[in-house]
């Protein structure tokens, strides 16, 4: 394989020229100065994509009317249904259940398990396979205050500090209080946690923690959590039925205004199914695959924001949906590795961020949003970024410094997966730096919930990345795996509780999709002429030369 182009190789010489002095300074613990609180604020407001006016606009309809979100999100919030409600016969019920869970990642599966334990029959509807989710991609770990020197109190302070004090307080209290319960639950389900010989949990610090409380299972904590939860759900298949490749496309309400099911779409047969449920849990995850402002993403294939689109039509309000987490170091070269995440560990081991002239331009371990702003500034304002052959921009992440600081072979030992992923394309990251740029990582905001994982729509619960408020406007590492399990469990539990309250009610209250018709009237009133169809369901990467031969009419 080819490795870097001759032009890029020439530029690497600038990095190599300054490396010895930089390594020397790093050995003496002399770093590029970290930013003050005031500087942080300024950098964020000037360079972080969240704070830029372009690429965003005010939404014209619905509960958040007038609020400004990224254009890609607004397009979907203002989208029209995939179905014509008039053509759907809601009397023909295909599935009936106690709890319908939409989404089968960590949050949805946790909700299903706990609802089942509380006596419910559960259907889990999911767009791809059971477990296809961002959950499986979480490498770092899961936080939980279970050590003697720690408590939920300190965990709370870390969470709100990391979130710039913009978090929803009751959700943070729930998150941190339940964390030990979640870790214990996972242990009892047979999760292979990293432990000391006596069974004590092996814990580490994460960015922004005051206590070591990052639990892990190798470097695939999320994948291990997902496969254990999925395995347990399969053991309970009599009560938990999973419908794969069947994304929900609309919520169904009843005449009393309660959430009472959903319309599913069989991706393979293209049939729609009516699921009648007494309660619904929304757990569809985030929006990375919308490629906000054209950013590549670390997210899985199905992260297309389907959940927020459906619930918005049913009147559920969004919170902080303009807030997106960009991971500072996503790969921009080679083209095959686009969006691939380069873990914080690379900077933790001493790699610096370097511009086209071979100069340092920021402290390498700023919080994620600050670090991203620094890189964007260096590229877009100062013009000191490096342009790849296809026109992407990035800065160098000087991984060979790790070898200089910690000895030869450290890169291979500490970063085996990353080493292989570059070696495959002829780049030896122990000898050559990587080209990186911020990549779309996490949807900070989402639908509003309370600390019971309930929403303003009776019978609708939600958990995980689809919701907003837990992490405020910035999330710490290790709190997303925790979030999905804490609120997934609370959603399952409270959906089961809710069932008891609706039991006494007269059955046979009419199902309805009137909210969808009403919403589309609202679209027309707002003058939205040609809304896109939503939810998006699958991203589309068809290249232009293929599209040209598909001869699609502009308005099918």
């Amino acid at each position: 394989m080819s490795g870097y182009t001759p032009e890029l190789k020439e530029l690497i010489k600038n990095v190599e020229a300054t490396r010895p002095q930089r390594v020397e300074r790093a050995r003496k613990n002399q770093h590029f100065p970290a930013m003050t609180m005031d500087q942080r604020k300024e950098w964020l407001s000037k360079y972080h994509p969240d704070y830029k006016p372009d690429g965003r606009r005010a939404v014209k309809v619905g509960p958040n009317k007038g609020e400004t979100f990224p254009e890609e999100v607004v397009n979907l919030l203002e989208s029209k249904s995939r179905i014509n409600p008039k053509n759907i016969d809601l009397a023909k019920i295909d599935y009936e259940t106690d709890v319908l869970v939409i989404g089968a990642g960590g949050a949805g599966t946790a909700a299903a398990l706990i609802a089942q334990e509380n006596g419910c029959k559960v259907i889990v509807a999911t767009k791809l396979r059971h477990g296809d989710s961002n959950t499986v991609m979480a490498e770092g770990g899961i936080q939980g205050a279970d050590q003697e020197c720690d408590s939920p109190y300190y965990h709370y302070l870390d969470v709100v500090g990391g979130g710039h004090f913009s978090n929803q307080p009751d959700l943070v209290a729930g998150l941190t209080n339940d964390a030990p319960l979640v870790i214990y639950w996972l242990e009892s389900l047979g999760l292979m946690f990293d432990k000391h010989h006596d069974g004590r949990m092996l814990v580490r610090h994460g960015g922004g923690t005051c206590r070591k409380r990052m639990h892990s299972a190798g470097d695939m904590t999320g994948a291990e959590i997902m496969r254990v939860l999925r395995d347990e759900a399969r053991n309970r298949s009599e009560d938990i039925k999973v419908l794969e490749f069947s994304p929900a496309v609309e919520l169904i309400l009843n005449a009393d205004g309660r959430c009472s099911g959903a319309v599913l779409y069989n991706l393979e047969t293209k049939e729609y199914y009516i699921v009648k449920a007494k309660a619904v849990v929304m757990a569809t995850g985030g929006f990375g695959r919308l490629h906000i402002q054209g950013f590549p993403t670390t997210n899985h294939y199905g992260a297309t924001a389907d959940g927020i689109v459906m619930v918005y039509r049913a009147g559920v309000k969004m919170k902080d949906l303009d807030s997106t987490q960009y991971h500072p170091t996503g790969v921009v070269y080679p083209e095959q590795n686009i969006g691939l995440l380069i873990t914080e560990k690379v900077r933790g081991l001493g790699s610096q961020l370097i511009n086209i002239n071979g100069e340092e331009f920021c402290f390498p371990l700023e919080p994620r949003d600050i670090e991203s702003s620094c890189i964007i500034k260096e590229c877009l304002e100062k013009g000191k970024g490096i342009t790849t052959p296809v026109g992407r921009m990035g800065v160098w992440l000087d991984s060979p410094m790790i070898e200089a600081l910690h000895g030869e072979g450290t890169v291979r030992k500490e970063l085996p997966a990353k080493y292989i992923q570059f070696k495959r394309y002829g780049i030896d990251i122990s000898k050559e730096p990587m080209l990186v740029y911020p990549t779309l990582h996490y949807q900070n905001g989402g639908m509003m919930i309370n600390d019971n994982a309930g929403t303003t729509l009776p019978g609708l619960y939600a958990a995980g990345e689809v919701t907003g408020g837990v992490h405020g406007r910035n999330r710490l590492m290790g709190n997303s795996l925790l979030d999905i399990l804490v609120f997934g469990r609370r959603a399952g539990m409270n959906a089961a509780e809710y069932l008891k309250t609706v039991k006494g009610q007269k059955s046979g209250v009419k199902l309805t999709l009137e909210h969808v018709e009403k919403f589309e009237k609202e679209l027309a009133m707002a003058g939205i002429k040609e809304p896109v169809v939503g939810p998006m369901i699958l991203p589309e990467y068809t290249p232009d030369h293929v599209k040209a031969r598909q001869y699609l009419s502009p308005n099918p």
Partner: protein
Amino acid sequence: MAKDKKPIKPLATGDKTIPPEGAKMIPIYIMGREYMVPETLTIMKATEYAGYQYMRGCGCRGGICGACGTFYRFLGDYKLKTGLACQTVAQPNMVITQLPFFPSNRPDYDLEKMEGSPHEELRRLYPEVFKCVGCGTCTRTCPMDIDVMDYIALMKRGDLKGAAIKSFDCVMCGLCAARCPAQISQFTAAMFVRRIYGKYILPTAEHLKKRVEAVKSGKYLKMLDELTKKSADELKKLYTEREREPDMAEPGKWMPKDISHL
């Protein structure tokens, strides 16, 4: 930024493949049909470049979910090879098919109620594991380079700890099971063994058990409730005054000066 200066904008965006100018095109055969694609793409991106929109056979796109297990051969070569489509580079004359699903054997069990010893339970659930013929096809097939046959051998011997650790990197793509002449579903048996190991063989965390009791007794509700009522300025003060546990502190030994919130 100076007003007259044009803002710098990156040209390429999103996830779509943009082949570099003058990229060499190579023939690949997706399920037997020839397509010309730029060299150095992964099989997944080459397939998308050819015009396919994935529904099955595509998940995390990062080598961990196991959705895109792939078999391929090169024209004129008898050797059958495997890989994950999102991790394997497409090469000239590759004949490719993905395995989006495989009907594997996965008997239900109750982790809380094991009837016999873990080894007996494994024999009851997966008798076919003990009929492994030792051909090693599974090991040669595994796209994660796991020595599958070895962990099956460990299972047969009753070394469940060894089997759990050896199989840990499994992404459950099912390629091993698809090729096994003894019809074993190695990856589902390994899932069972890992959970047995995690629950019954790994020692449990005593400090966690104590903390769970404290949480269940409602010990932290009041202090958390107080925090939820504090202003941003009050929280900022508490935040900046936190003591940081030293990186090298011995597990379970270090204590903060203020222990009133533990």
